């Protein structure tokens, strides 16, 4: 990172304030669509912090994977379960929130004290010894982290198959017993959709 020290500190402050404000908005706002868009702000700020930490490839991967895939997935899930329901008030929810806030602030104070007290074994080597992080990461992936790298691909395949299986609509077991298999061969054995709920069916026809 060739930026001057002042520029680094100023950009760190801006990114940190952006990230913490957006994270608080994700947790505290009542409208979940606003929360989803603020989550994208959190991911983008964290990507900027990665660039400050000399991780250019990981910053790009963060934007591609989190903002491009995970956040879009969350937005689709919000659209699919878009039900404006007013959650019924349960007794003691106020007390629960206050107690959780106290515990979280206490945990933050504990972690902060630990961070500031611990003598970190800082390495004085300049981060510029690695001129290209992509090459260094690739060497790690294909030499000493080869097994976790291959396992990650298997994990992604399993997650994809599992998500498809879980998100499919319910199977109807008795449809396998019907005799007219010729007409239903190319359709998935699913519960038929209620066309009345879609609306504007007549206009399409």
């Amino acid at each position: 990172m060739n930026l001057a020290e002042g520029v680094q500190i100023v950009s760190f402050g801006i990114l940190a304030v952006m990230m913490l404000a957006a994270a608080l908005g994700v947790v505290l706002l009542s409208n979940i669509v606003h929360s989803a868009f603020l989550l994208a702000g959190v991911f983008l700020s964290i990507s900027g912090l990665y660039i400050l930490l000399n991780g250019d490839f990981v910053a790009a991967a963060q934007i591609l994977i989190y903002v491009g895939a995970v956040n879009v997935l969350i937005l689709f899930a919000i659209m699919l379960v878009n039900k404006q329901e007013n959650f019924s008030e349960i007794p003691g929810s106020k007390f629960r929130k206050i107690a959780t806030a106290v515990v979280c602030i206490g945990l933050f104070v504990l972690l902060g004290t630990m961070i500031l007290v611990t003598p970190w074994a800082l390495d004085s080597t300049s981060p510029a010894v690695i001129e290209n992080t992509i090459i260094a990461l690739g060497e790690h992936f294909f030499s000493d982290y080869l097994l976790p790298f291959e396992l990650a691909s298997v994990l992604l395949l399993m997650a994809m198959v599992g998500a498809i299986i879980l998100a499919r609509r319910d199977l109807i077991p008795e449809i396998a017993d019907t005799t007219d298999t010729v007409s239903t061969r190319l359709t998935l054995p699913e519960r038929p959709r209620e066309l009345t709920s879609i609306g504007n069916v007549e206009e399409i026809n």
Partner: protein
Amino acid sequence: MQLEYFLVIAAALFCIGIYGLITSRNAVRVLMSIELMLNAVNLNLMGFSNYLDPSAIKGQVFTVFVITVAAAEAAVGLAIVLAIYRNRETIDMEQFNLLKW
């Protein structure tokens, strides 16, 4: 720029994630809080990678693995939320009491 700055804001992000995880009633918001916590962990790993191990950036390798696992977790978690929503017609976490005693 010091390592402690990054660690402190990562700790703050983690605590915000825990707060959201416990107090949220909406199941999708719970998943978003989990993503916040995973990002806090990634920020820690990147900070350690830059300040403690700048010659062999193993922290960035672990960050890439955590991002992979987080993507898989988000896909499966949202599929589970969709399946529960189809069965129970709600996404209120207080009513997901199938495994409570």
